[in-house]
C-alpha cells in the first residue's frame, strides 16, 4: 500500500460521510501515516450531495482532490450519479443496495461494483444512528487503511464522552463497525 489509497465518500447531508472521513483520517494520522481529507464545499454544500475526498499514504500526499478514486462509496441515488465521475477501471465502487432506481446509473467500467445493505442492517439489526459507523467499517473492510483496533480507538476518542454515560453505546458502535467490515468482505 505504499502508493496509498484514494477514497471518495458521498451521501446526503445527515448521512455522516464527513464525520466518517474525519474519523478515518484521524485514525490514520494517529497511526503515523500521511492523511489528507477535504470536503466538497461551496454553494453545493447547502442541500447538495456531500462528498469527502480522503487520501491515506505512507508518502507525502499530492493534490488534495483527485480525478479517480481507488474506492468510491455512494450512499444515495444522487450520490451514485455524482460520484460516477471518480470511477476508472481500477476503482471499487460500493453503494447501498437499498437505493432504488440507480440500476442504470451504476458504473460499468469499475473494477468491482459492490452493493451492501448498510441502511437495512442499521435499521433492522442495530440502530439508524450507527449507519455512518457501518459505512466506516465498510471503508476499512474495502481498503485496510487502518486496522480495527486503531479505528476503535478513534471512535473512542470521538465518542468516548457518550460511552461514559452509556457503555452500551460503545458495544453498539463497535458492533456496527465490525458488521460494516463483514458486509464488504462478503462481497469482495
Amino acid at each position, binding site marked *: 500500500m505504499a502508493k496509498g489509497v484514494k477514497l471518495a465518500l458521498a451521501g446526503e447531508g445527515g448521512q455522516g460521510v464527513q464525520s466518517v472521513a474525519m474519523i478515518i483520517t484521524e485514525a490514520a494520522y494517529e497511526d503515523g501515516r500521511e492523511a*489528507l*481529507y*477535504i*470536503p466538497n*464545499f461551496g*454553494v453545493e454544500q447547502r442541500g447538495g450531495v456531500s462528498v469527502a475526498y480522503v487520501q491515506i499514504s505512507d508518502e507525502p500526499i499530492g*493534490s488534495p482532490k483527485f480525478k479517480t478514486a481507488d474506492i468510491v462509496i455512494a450512499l444515495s441515488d444522487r450520490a451514485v450519479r455524482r460520484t460516477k465521475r471518480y470511477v476508472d477501471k481500477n476503482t471499487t465502487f460500493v453503494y447501498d443496495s437499498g437505493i432504488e432506481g440507480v440500476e442504470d446509473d451504476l458504473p460499468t467500467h469499475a473494477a468491482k461494483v459492490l452493493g451492501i445493505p448498510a441502511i437495512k442492517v442499521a435499521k433492522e439489526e442495530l440502530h439508524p444512528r450507527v449507519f455512518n459507523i457501518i459505512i466506516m467499517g465498510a471503508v476499512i473492510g474495502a481498503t485496510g487503511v487502518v486496522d480495527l483496533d486503531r479505528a476503535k480507538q478513534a471512535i473512542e476518542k470521538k465518542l468516548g464522552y457518550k460511552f461514559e454515560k452509556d457503555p452500551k453505546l460503545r458495544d453498539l458502535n463497535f458492533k456496527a463497525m465490525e458488521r460494516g467490515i463483514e458486509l464488504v468482505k462478503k462481497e469482495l
Partner: protein
Amino acid sequence: MTEKPIQGEKRVFMTGNEVVAWAALAADAEIMYGYPITPQNEIMHYWTRLAPKHGRRFLQTEDEISAGFTTVGGVLAGRRAFTATAGPGNTLMQEALSMAEMMRIPIVQVVTQRGGPSTATVIYSQQEVTMTCFGGNGEGARIVYSTSTHQELYDYTIKAFNTAWKYRFPTHVLGDGYQSKMRESLTMYDPQARGIDMVPTEPSLGNEGTPGVDREPNHLRNTYNTEDELYDVVTNIMSDWEKYAPEIAEYQEYDVEDADVLVIAHGVVTRAAQAAVKELRAQGKKVGHFRPVTLRPIAEEQLRKRVEQAKSVLVVESAYGQLRKILDNAIYGLTTPITNFFKPGEGVTADEVVEEVNKLL
C-alpha cells in the same frame, strides 16, 4: 503575560484555516480585523475562540474595505495586526493595501483564494495572484508567499509578520480554498523554541511624550502636491524594494539539474508537480520542477537559469496565466519554448501534469 499558546512542539491534524489562527497566535499577533467571506471564515472562527484566552483581540468590521483600513490603524498603533480575506473581499481590501504600500505600513494579509472573477466559486483557485501581487494603484511593493502545505501555512504565517515588520512592506500569505478546508498533519511550534525571534513592533502614532513639546509630531501622509515629491517617494520605495528583493525571494527545486522539461507551478499545485516529477523520474524521464515560493518578489536569477537550461517549460496553474505573466516578465529574452496548462478555478492532479509533460517529451 499569558501562557504561550504552543509550548515547544506539537504534532497536529487540522484544517488550514485553523493552522493560520494558531500560527498568528504563536507569532504573537495581537489583533485581527476581518469580515466574513468563504473560504476564509474559519480563520476568524478559530481566532475568536482562541484570542481572548491569550489576551488578543478581534474586530468584525462592516466590509473588507474597513477590515483593511482598521488593520492599517492597528499597525499604526504599533500592534502586530492582521486580516484575512478572499476573492471579492480581496478586491475591496486592495485600497487599504495600496495605502500600506505607499506609507510602508507592515500589515499582514492572509488570502484564501477562491474562484473568480466576480463571486464565482467559494471553493478554490489561483486567480488572486495578480491582485495580491499588484492590486493597488501602484507598483506592487509587496511581499507574497504562496504556500502549499499546512506546514508551510504555519511557517509562513509566522514569517510573514517578521518579514512585514523587518522590511515594512505589506506582506501576504497566499493560500487557497483547498488549503483552508483540507485536513492534514503538521508540526506546530513555539517560534522562540526554534530560535525564531519575533521582530519587535513599534507605534507610528501615539508614542510617548507631547508632540511639539517633548518630540516632533508624526505627520504621516500619502498625498503629495508635486510630481517631484511623489517621484522621490516612489523611487525610494522601489529602491528599497529592489534592494531587499534578492534576500526576500524564495524558491524550491526538484530534479532540475539535468531536466529537459521544467514544470513551473506555485502554491498547492506544486504538490501535483512534485508528485508528477517523482513518477516521471521513476520512469527515467528527465523532468524537473521549479517552484517559486515568493511570487513577489520572484527569484528571478535562479528562475532564468533553470528555464535557460531546460529544453521545454510547462507552466501549470489554476488560473488563466496569472503566474505565467509574472514568469514572462522575469525570463524576458529567453527562447525556451513554453507550454501552458491552465485550469482556472480548478484543481490540478499529478496525473494531469504527467500527461502534459509526456506530450512534451
